[in-house]
């Protein structure tokens, strides 16, 4: 499978602030790639480098086979972008902005435009200054989704959307994926990423800390187990957050020790057992926790 985006060792500083510090990112053709990180981790900066709006200090960046800084115009014919904070021209209507951006990208399908406006329940006649944040976001989303771009760069695209509109957005991205197009979706909303993404890169402080499919990442984390036992269990080694309440135990276990711990449990006679795979939430929290530990040090 070919890579649509290949970033390695990307660094970018603004004055003394180091926004990106050796970031790596690989996005394969046809996948929806989740780009996760807390606020200020460098997600938007990375996307702006990919758009050729910012120039990389060091590292290599390839986008659709080109150099995003040098070949910006050629590459922009093939991608569509939704900024994280959409600002519109106060005296242009939403419909005008959608058409303008579409025409700049080389035209958009009027049927798809009308359908998307309908699905997102957007009033295209309102002027830019009259839209709420969510509606401004919808204007940019309609413009991007109505295009034929083979790559969509979406920077926290659902911020400001209500849950109903989020569902519409999720459907739209799935359709885009079915058409074989590639999506880079930056977000800090984990449920959204879990629902949509094939692979995920987690970044923190301008560096990639994890990357892989959701399944691969789950291997790195712990499974939650609650069990009702016939007799008290002794010496549960290598488990975390152990809580014993009479015959009930609950704990978390590292995936590579799961087998060993289950054997230990069955020795005590298991009456009931529930196990829950790790959510991305827990994965994410672990990275946050590491960060706060690192900060405390």
């Amino acid at each position: 499978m070919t890579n649509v985006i290949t970033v390695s060792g990307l660094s970018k500083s603004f004055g003394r602030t180091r926004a990106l510090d050796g970031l790596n990112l690989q996005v394969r053709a046809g996948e929806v790639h989740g780009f996760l990180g807390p606020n200020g981790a460098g997600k938007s900066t990375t996307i702006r480098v990919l758009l050729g709006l910012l120039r990389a200090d060091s590292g290599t960046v390839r986008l659709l086979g080109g150099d995003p800084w040098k070949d910006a115009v050629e590459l922009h014919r093939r991608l569509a972008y939704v900024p994280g904070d959409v600002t519109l021209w106060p005296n242009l209507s939403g419909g005008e902005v959608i058409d303008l951006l579409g025409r700049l990208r080389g035209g958009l399908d009027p049927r798809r435009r009308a359908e998307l406006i309908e699905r997102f329940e957007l009033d295209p006649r309102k002027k830019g200054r009259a839209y709420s944040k969510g509606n401004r976001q919808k204007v940019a989303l309609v413009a991007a989704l109505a295009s034929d771009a083979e790559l969509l760069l979406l920077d926290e695209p659902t911020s400001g959307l209500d849950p109903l509109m989020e569902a519409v957005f999720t459907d739209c991205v799935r359709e885009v994926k079915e058409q074989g197009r590639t999506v880079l979706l930056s977000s800090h909303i984990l449920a959204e990423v879990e629902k949509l993404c094939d692979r995920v890169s987690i970044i923190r402080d301008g560096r990639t800390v994890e990357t892989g499919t959701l399944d691969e990442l789950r291997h790195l984390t712990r499974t939650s187990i609650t069990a009702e036992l016939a007799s008290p269990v002794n010496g549960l080694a290598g488990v975390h957050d152990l809580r014993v309440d009479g015959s009930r135990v609950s704990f978390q276990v590292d995936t590579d020790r799961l087998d060993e711990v289950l054997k230990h449990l069955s020795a005590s006679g298991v009456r009931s057992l529930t196990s829950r795979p790790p959510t991305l939430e827990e994965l994410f929290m672990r990275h946050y926790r590491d960060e706060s530990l690192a900060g405390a040090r």
Partner: protein
Amino acid sequence: MTGSWALVRLILRRDRFILPLWVVVFGLLPITQTSAIAGLYTGEAELRRFAASMDANPAFTALYGHVLDWNAAALGLWRGGFTPVLVGLAVLLTVIRHTRAEEETGRRELLGSTVLSRHAGLTSALIVTTAASLVIGLIVLATFAAEYPVEGALAAGLGYAGTGIVFAAVGALAAQLTENAGGARGIAIAVLGGAYLLRGAGDTTDASWLSWLSPVAWPQRMRPFAGETWWPFALFVALAAALCCAAYLLAGRRDVAAGLLPPRLGPATAAPALAGPFALAWRLHRGSLLAWTLGFAVLGVVMGAAANAAMSAMAENKRLLDMLARLGGASAQSDMFVAAVLGIFGIAVSGYAVQAVLRMRAEETAQRAEPLLATPATRVAWTASHLVVAVLGPAAVLAVLGLSLGLTYGLGSGDVGTHLPRVLGASLAQLPAVWVLAAVATALFGVLPRLAAAAWGVLAAFLLFGQLGALLDLPEAVLDLSPFTHLPRLPGGDPEFTPYAVLTAIAAVLLAAGVYGFRRRDVAT
């Protein structure tokens, strides 16, 4: 009133550089001009002759009002007759910046959710601008009282303070009318411009009552250093109070962020023409370009009429005509007037050019350039789309100015065929200097984007060089920095080729540097 003082501190914090700057500059301008005149014309005889020749010229009356007395202080205040207009401009912009502009951006909403009375925003903006007006008045009072009679100094100070207070109230009322700050600014500036034109009309015609309708004329109606009259100050107070009452009444009846004039819906689809960066730039610039063009068309008519009045007044005054004949004749005199007017207007049009260029920076920092530059539109095309307006827009404004001024002037003197092409040419001859200003702004935008707004400082410096350079005896090397210094004085002067070619070349180089710089730098995030 709750929270007003906290907001006053916020305003002072946000404007901590610009506010003291204009307060001090406007406060010191009158005494500077007075000292300059006192230095140039020594003794009663010279001052009397200067006063008589100035008052005999209705063109100067149109620009600055009547000369009230021959003493240096009265003449200095007369010569600075335009400064109260600048004070009015500064206060009304300040009021709108801290009221309507805050509401438009939604910051008012954030503050409004705290312990703050409904009117705290308006009140705090009025407190700051009223205080600033009073400080300007105090500076005028103190600087004049040191050398001249204190009664006159007090009348002069009250005149400046009064103008500031009235136009702060004008700004407060305009801020209630529209949802967007730009519209409010337009309304308030139109009122200020109308007041200035009304004063000019009243002072140069028989309908002198017209001037009484204009707050811009009231400082002179207090007759500082010319037998002071105090009661016109009551006019300032009464008008400001009435305008403020209206503003508070409207503010109390409307929703936060709503205007009195309702917003309209736009088209659901874009017109076929709105299809590229150039179409968008035209859409963004057309309103202000139209306003500038119309404004200068009106100014051209007014100044053309003033030049005509000057001609006929001089024709009646035999002794003055003889004196002028020795200086090159009456037509040379009115040419000088037209040239002086065009010189000032050229700098004003540069203001338009700088604003058009800096629109790019505003688009960039508001993140509105980003989605465009993420399309196949190139950076050069995007920059060029704004620069076309900044380069050709001033040409359109100056052409319309030249046409209206030349036509009025030509019709009055009965010789359109001669005067129209001369005046039109002279007006367009300002362009190379205007382009240099546009190019300075572009270069700053491309190379030192954070300092882009410094283009306004450059423009202000050139304006000061032109207006005060000779009076302040600035060294020639400094005056030569201004492109306007190098323009031949037209009509009447010798239209040399070299300065135009050199200025255009400088502008071209700076423009290219700006575009090149922007191609290579990061887009602001």
